């Protein structure tokens, strides 16, 4: 058997719960297949990485404060991309998934960490949305487009979600 690497990269642009779950299922699955996995979080995807009930100590201007308040903080606060109905859809989806014994998003994220999935937050998007490093979960990397592309060139699977 040749030592060929099956690396995977994912760009997680969306901050929707369903898309985040799909992203982490693919990421943990890819890690289980044996390759290196990089998840690059940009724009709304950054909300998945936000700490719950945490207010940043970063000094923010008016727009940044608005973004900070209006965007969901962390995996438990996300809505689903269809039929969210002001959060009711998200609650129902979580209930159905629990009943069917499907891992929750926080569980999948924990699993991704255990499997050494490389999580990178896009610094440009952080700047746009006024998100400070202290607002995001620990143990992640920070980078830009080159950091993502560098990994993507060496990967066979590149997804934009």
């Amino acid at each position, binding site marked *: 058997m040749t030592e060929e690497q099956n690396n995977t990269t994912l760009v997680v642009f969306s901050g929707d719960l369903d898309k985040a779950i799909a992203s982490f299922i693919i990421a943990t699955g890819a890690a289980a297949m*044996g390759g290196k996995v990089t998840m690059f979080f940009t724009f709304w995807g950054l909300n998945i990485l936000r700490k719950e009930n945490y207010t940043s100590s970063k000094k923010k201007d008016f727009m940044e404060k608005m973004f900070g308040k209006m965007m969901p903080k962390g995996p438990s606060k996300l809505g689903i991309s269809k039929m969210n109905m002001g959060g009711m859809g998200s609650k129902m989806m979580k209930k159905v998934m629990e009943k069917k014994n499907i891992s929750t998003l926080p569980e999948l994220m924990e699993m991704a960490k255990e499997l050494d999935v490389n999580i990178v937050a896009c610094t440009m998007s952080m700047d746009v949305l006024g998100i400070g490093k202290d607002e995001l979960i620990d143990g992640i990397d920070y980078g830009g487009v080159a950091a993502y592309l560098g990994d993507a060139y060496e990967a066979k699977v590149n997804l934009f979600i």
Partner: protein
Amino acid sequence: MKADLTVDAKGLSCPMPLVRAKKGMDQLNSGDVLELISTDPGSKNDFKAWVQTAGHELIDIYEADGVYTIYVKKK
């Protein structure tokens, strides 16, 4: 069949059986046999792909009453 380690993933959904299998495999030495038990209907194809990609050897797959038992030899 004699297995060096059994991973019971009954009741778990995708991707957990795969993740458990990978973690089990990490504990084994080359040539050891891993026994996987799963009730996820996607398991059969999932494990076939996993074994192929990871380079292990698929020894056998049994299916009975929706329970898949899979034997894999570590590369």
